[in-house]
C-alpha cells in the first residue's frame, strides 16, 4: 500500500551495453510491505534492473532510489538495509546449514549477539528448523533455495531483492517458498522478486511485466486483468472441441475474435467484448451443426494478459 511509503523507486532508468539496450526507460514504485513482482521472459532486463537498484551497475541514464536513498556511487550506508539473493547464489557445500548461515552472518559483520539472533530468526523465517546440521550438498533444490533465503535475511534487511529464486524448483517447493515470502511481509520486509513463471504473478501484490527492457503492464493482478482484458475470455464446453476450434478459427475475422484455444475438453475464445459476441458465436457453431455446450465468461490468466499486451 502506498500509504506505507515507498521502498524502491525507478525513474526513466536506462542501461546500455554498447549497442544493446538492456533496460529502456524503466519506471516503477515499490511500496513498503508488499511483494512486488518483476516478470518477464529470460533476457528482458530483470537482472540488470536489480543490479542497478543494488548499486552493482551504474545506470546509463535515469535514477533509482532504495529506501529513500538515491543509489549512486556510494551505497555503503544502504548495504546493511538491503538483502539480495542472486540467481546463482553460492553456498558452501561441505558446510552444514548452520555453518553456512554463520559464515554469511560474519561476512555481514554481525556481532556475536546479532549473529546468534539473526541465525535463529533466519532458521525460522526460511523454514530451516530441524535441518541445522544437514550438509549443504545433501539438500535438494528447494531446500538450498531456503538456505539461500536464510542467508539473505540474516542481517534483518528492510527490503529483499530476489532474482529468480524459484527457477528450476518443483511446484510444491515453489508454493512453500511463496509462503515463506508472505511470512517475511509480516515481519515488514518488502520483497522485490523476479520470475519468468507467469503463474507466480498471481502471488504478487503488485507487479510489472517486462519485455525487451520496458515495462508493458503495471499494477495489481486484478487491476491488470481489468485494464488489459475486461471480460475477454469466453469458455465453451462443446461436445467436439476439434470441430469447434476449426469452425471458430475460420470465422474469426467475421466474429472479430483474436484467438481460439483448446483447454482439455474446453475451448477458450479470446477477443474484446466477448459478452456481446456470445450469440453470434453460438449461432455460428449451431449453423455448422455443432453443439456449443455450456458457455461462460471466465477470468483471464495473467499469462493471457501478458500475451495480449505484447500483441
Amino acid at each position, binding site marked *: 500500500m502506498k500509504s506505507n511509503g515507498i521502498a524502491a523507486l525507478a525513474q526513466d532508468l536506462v542501461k546500455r551495453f554498447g549497442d544493446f539496450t538492456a533496460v529502456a526507460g524503466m519506471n516503477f514504485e515499490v511500496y513498503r510491505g508488499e511483494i512486488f513482482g518483476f516478470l518477464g521472459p529470460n533476457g528482458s532486463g530483470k537482472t540488470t534492473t536489480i543490479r542497478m537498484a543494488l548499486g552493482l551497475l551504474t545506470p546509463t541514464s535515469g535514477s533509482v532510489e532504495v529506501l529513500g536513498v538515491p543509489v549512486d556511487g556510494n551505497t555503503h550506508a544502504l548495504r546493511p538495509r538491503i538483502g539480495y539473493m542472486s540467481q546463482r547464489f553460492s553456498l558452501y557445500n561441505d558446510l552444514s546449514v548452520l555453518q553456512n548461515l554463520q559464515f554469511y552472518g560474519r561476512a555481514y559483520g554481525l556481532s556475536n549477539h546479532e549473529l546468534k539472533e539473526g541465525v535463529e530468526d533466519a532458521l525460522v523465517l526460511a523454514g530451516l528448523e530441524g535441518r541445522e546440521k544437514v550438509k549443504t550438498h545433501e539438500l535438494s533444490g528447494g531446500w538450498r533455495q531456503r538456505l539461500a533465503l536464510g542467508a539473505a535475511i540474516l542481517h534483518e534487511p528492510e527490503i529483499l531483492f530476489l532474482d529468480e529464486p524459484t527457477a528450476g524448483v518443483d*511446484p510444491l517447493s515453489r508454493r512453500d517458498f511463496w509462503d515463506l515470502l508472505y511470512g517475511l*511481509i509480516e515481519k515488514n520486509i518488502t520483497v522485490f522478486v523476479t520470475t519468468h513463471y507467469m503463474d507466480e504473478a498471481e502471488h504478487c501484490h503488485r507487479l510489472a511485466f517486462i519485455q525487451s527492457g520496458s515495462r508493458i503492464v503495471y499494477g495489481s493482478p486484478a487491476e491488470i486483468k481489468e485494464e488489459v482484458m475486461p471480460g475477454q475470455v469466453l469458455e465453451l464446453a462443446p461436445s467436439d472441441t476439434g470441430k469447434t476450434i476449426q469452425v471458430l478459427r475460420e470465422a474469426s475475422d467475421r466474429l472479430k475474435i483474436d484467438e481460439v484455444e*483448446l*483447454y*482439455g*475438453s474446453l475451448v477458450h475464445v479470446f477477443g474484446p467484448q466477448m459478452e456481446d459476441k456470445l450469440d453470434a458465436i453460438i449461432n455460428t457453431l449451431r449453423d455448422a451443426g455443432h453443439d456449443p455446450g455450456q458457455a461462460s465468461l471466465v477470468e483471464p490468466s495473467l499469462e493471457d494478459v501478458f500475451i495480449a499486451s505484447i500483441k
Partner: protein
Amino acid sequence: MTSQAAIALSSLTKEFKDNRAVDSLDISIQPGELFGLVGPDGAGKTTTLRLLAGLLDITEGEATIAGLDLAAETEKIKSHIGYMAQEFSMYAELSVEENLLFFAELYDVPVEHIQARKERLLEFAGLTEFKERRAAHLSGGMQKKLALACTLIHEPQILLLDEPTTGVDPVSRREFWNILTELHINGTTIIVSTPYMDEADRCSRVGLMYAGRLIVCASPQEIRQRVEGEMIELRPEDWQSARVLVAELPGVLEVQNYGERLHLLVDSAEKRLPEIETVLRSKKASYRSIRPAPTGMEEAFISLIKRMED
C-alpha cells in the same frame, strides 16, 4: 473401448541400482489423446518417456505401442513414434532447413516426400522465413519449434514430448501449444510431460506422477473434483488481519495467499461463505469481494500430493 490403445502400459517398472524411478505404471492411452504427464522433478516423467521411446530397457512389466510389444519390437516401433528429448540435440551449425533434411534422412523418409513435408513443417512451425538461419542463432522458443518439426518429419502417429516448453518465453509457449492443438485435432496421439501445472489444463487427460508412481490419471475436470473441499476467494482490504481472522473459523481447512487475495479451502462454500461474511462484518474487517472460486490445477495437485505424503 473397442479401438486398440495407442499406448498400453502394464506394471511398467524401471529400476536404477537402488532407485525405482518408475514403479508399476498402468496406463492405457487411446489414439488421438492429448495426454499430460505432470509431477515434480524426479517423479519419473523423463524415465517413463525414455522407456516408451525404447531408449531404456524395461526392468519389469510390459508396454505395447501401436499394438507392438516394446521389448521385442523396438525397432519397428520407432517409425510410429516421434520423441523429443528435453535437451533435444540439433546441429547448431546447420540451418533450420538442413536440420530438417538431416532428420528426414535419419528416419528414411522417402525422397519423393521430403520436399513437400519440409515446406509444410516449416510453415506449420512458423519457421519458413527463418529457414536459412543457423539453429544456433534461433531464440529458445524457435529452437523448440524446430525440434518439434524435426520430430514430425517421418509423420509419426504417436508423439512423446519431454518438457518441450520448459524455459521458453510465454509467447513461444502459447505458440507451441497452438501447434500441439493442431496436431491433436488432426488425430496424432500426444504424450507431453511438463513441470507447469497450468499446462495440465490443456490436456484431455492428465497423469500425475509422484515418486515413480502414477497417483492420479483423469481429465482436468475430474482431478479438480477429487480435491476435498471447495474454494472461496476473498479480497480483503487488509489481508494480514483478515488471514488471522478467517484461518480459525470452523470449516476453513487451508488459507493460501494470492497477492492481495486469500484463497480459502473450505468444507462447503455454500455453507461457509455467509458465515465468513458475517464474521468479517462483525469484526469490521472490510473487503472488496468474496465469491466461490474454481479450484486451480496447481491447488488440486498440491492437495493430492500432500494427501499422498500424509
